[in-house]
């Protein structure tokens, strides 16, 4: 029998050691895969570190990839705090991107300084309003939001395809289903010359800080936590449960929408239907790795981005299939999850019949 007992005290050493042990364990598991492909294992890890941190370019790539993950991670963290299971980050991301492009390709003749905020706002609003649909279906009609948000992802992506093949298709795109390019004035500035990391990162960090303050220090956050932990007691204590759910939905969807804004207005400059390689879903992982903490989400997003970018680069350098990158991310995720448990709990193995635990 295995038993878990919560620790009263979590030593700082253990807190630091756990993720390190997890990372080592993950790499050990991944080395099986590398060895199976007949590639040198040790060299691979050096190359992986180099691919993630080895140069300004690598760092920029890491940060650029972490940016959308921070947003979608925050989106999931906020919603999950209220036990609103928003699995629809992917769709909200596309909604945000679509709105950003709709505004940013010249639909509004705004002066430069106003254009960027408008693009950002439009994207956030689109994501938020999209999430409002499942939230309303939940509070008004009792429809399970796991399912509705999940299904809306497919609907939204199809809608994006429809727009890209129809009204929003770039007439200069040689028939490819893609939007017109955003105006240069609507693009988020780059943070480093010739590098991809862009001002969306700053926005993401500010958002993380904002969400942190919101949840920890405001009445709003207090009410969100109360509703998430016990909606019955919250309602009994006079907290507007429905309004809280809707607010959370708007915020969560808005954050996911911002991920889309960053991708089109920070990186790509135009919209295609394959904008996101699953950032919306990865956001859930980010949020849970972070224990739903906004600041933790930044760390988790950097971690996941670093592992992916490093492993992807490494797979090329040693000449194994680049599906290895996702595999390394997955094993890291699982190992980190398990290690987090060992931080919070003592594991006792109880032999049946003795009644005595051994630590």
């Amino acid at each position, binding site marked *: 029998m295995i038993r878990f007992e919560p620790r009263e005290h979590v030593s700082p050493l253990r807190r630091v050691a756990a993720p390190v042990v997890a990372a080592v364990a993950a790499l050990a598991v991944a080395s099986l895969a590398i060895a199976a492909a007949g590639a040198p294992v040790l060299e691979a890890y050096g190359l992986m570190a180099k*691919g993630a941190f080895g140069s300004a*370019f690598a760092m920029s*790539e890491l940060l650029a*990839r972490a940016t959308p993950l921070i947003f979608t991670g925050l989106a999931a963290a906020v919603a999950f705090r209220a036990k609103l299971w928003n699995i629809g980050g992917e769709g909200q991301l596309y909604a945000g991107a679509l709105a950003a492009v709709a505004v940013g390709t010249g639909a509004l003749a705004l002066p430069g300084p106003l254009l960027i905020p408008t693009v950002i706002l439009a994207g956030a609003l689109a994501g938020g309003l999209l999430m409002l649909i499942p939230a309303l279906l939940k509070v008004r009609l009792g429809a399970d939001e796991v399912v509705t948000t999940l299904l809306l992802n497919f609907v939204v992506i*199809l809608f994006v*395809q429809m727009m890209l*093949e129809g009204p929003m298709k770039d007439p200069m*795109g*040689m*028939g*490819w*289903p*893609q939007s017109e*390019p955003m105006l240069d004035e609507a693009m988020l500035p780059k943070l480093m010359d*010739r590098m*991809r990391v862009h001002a969306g990162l700053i926005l993401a960090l500010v958002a993380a800080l904002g969400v942190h303050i919101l949840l920890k220090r405001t009445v709003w956050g207090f009410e969100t936590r109360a509703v998430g932990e016990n909606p019955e007691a919250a309602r009994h204590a006079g907290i507007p449960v429905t309004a809280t759910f809707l607010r959370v939905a708007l915020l969560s969807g808005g954050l996911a929408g911002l991920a889309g804004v960053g*991708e089109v207005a920070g*990186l*790509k*400059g*135009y919209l*295609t239907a*394959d*904008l*996101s*390689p699953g950032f919306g879903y990865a956001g859930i992982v980010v949020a849970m790795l972070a224990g739903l903490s906004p600041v933790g989400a930044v760390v988790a997003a950097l971690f996941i981005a670093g592992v992916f*970018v490093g492993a*992807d*680069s490494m*797979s*090329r*350098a040693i*000449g194994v*299939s*680049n*599906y290895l990158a996702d595999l390394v991310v997955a094993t890291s995720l699982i190992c980190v999850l398990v290690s987090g448990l060992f931080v919070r709990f003592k594991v006792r193995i109880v032999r049946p019949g003795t009644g005595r635990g051994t630590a």
Partner: protein
Amino acid sequence: AAEKPLKVAAIYTVPVEQQWVGRIHKALTAAKERGDVTYTYSENVANTDYERVMREYAEAGMDLIVGEAFAVERAARKVAAEYPDTAFLMGSSFGPAKPNFAVFDNWIHEPSYLTGMIAGNATKSNIIGMVGGYAIPEVNRLMNAFMEGALEVNPDVKFLVTFINSWYDPPKAKESAFAMIDKGADILYAERFGVSDAAKERGILAVGNVIDTASDYPGTIISSALWHMEPTIDRVIEDVAGGSFEPSDYGQYSYMSYGGGSFVVDEALADAASVEAARKVEKDILDGLFRVNVNDAEPKSTM
């Protein structure tokens, strides 16, 4: 073989099993086996990652990078400009760019037209079903050429067109094909994996596209429009190795006259007269006497 093989990398946004990319992969693998090049590739690269992968290969000192810029035109051109010592050959709907951005595409509308002629003659129900992945120019133009060829020999023929909105869903492509068979189609234009399977299962004919699958579906593939990337690849390798690489449009090497496209027909399945007619047009094309129209508009059902 050259004394020092050229370092070539390819970046694909889909797995190498995908027909289109498979042809590039095949040509590069052949060049590698000849010893002309060293060849590495990354497949299924997401658009967001495309730019990073390009830069990584460029940084790694590749002589030539082959890929597809379709959804990443801007980024791809920007990266290329920053690595002037590397040659880029990218699938693109746009033109080449200085100093080092050459383009290509699968211009096999000519053999597609010819397969259309075969199909137009072969259909008895006068209904041809066409299942595509996405309605993008690369697909549309081949479908349109095929339809034109069929209408040329048989003005009564009607088309059913469906896009399954996926490059990779053979079961779905198969279902779409079944639906067309149920509606009376007796020849299928097999743009995607899965369509010929439906044809084989129901005992009707199919027209192949890009790759030759006749041996996988014996008695089913009446004719195919094949794409051969070897002329393009061999040409660009020669140019880069010889120092004569120019950012030009390599698209022409996919034309039949360069051997980049070819038309095959199963003479056991097609009747002799229609084969003869198609062969005649084929010769005209090769002699430059006949030009097949290029039409990128989305094809629509005509019934």
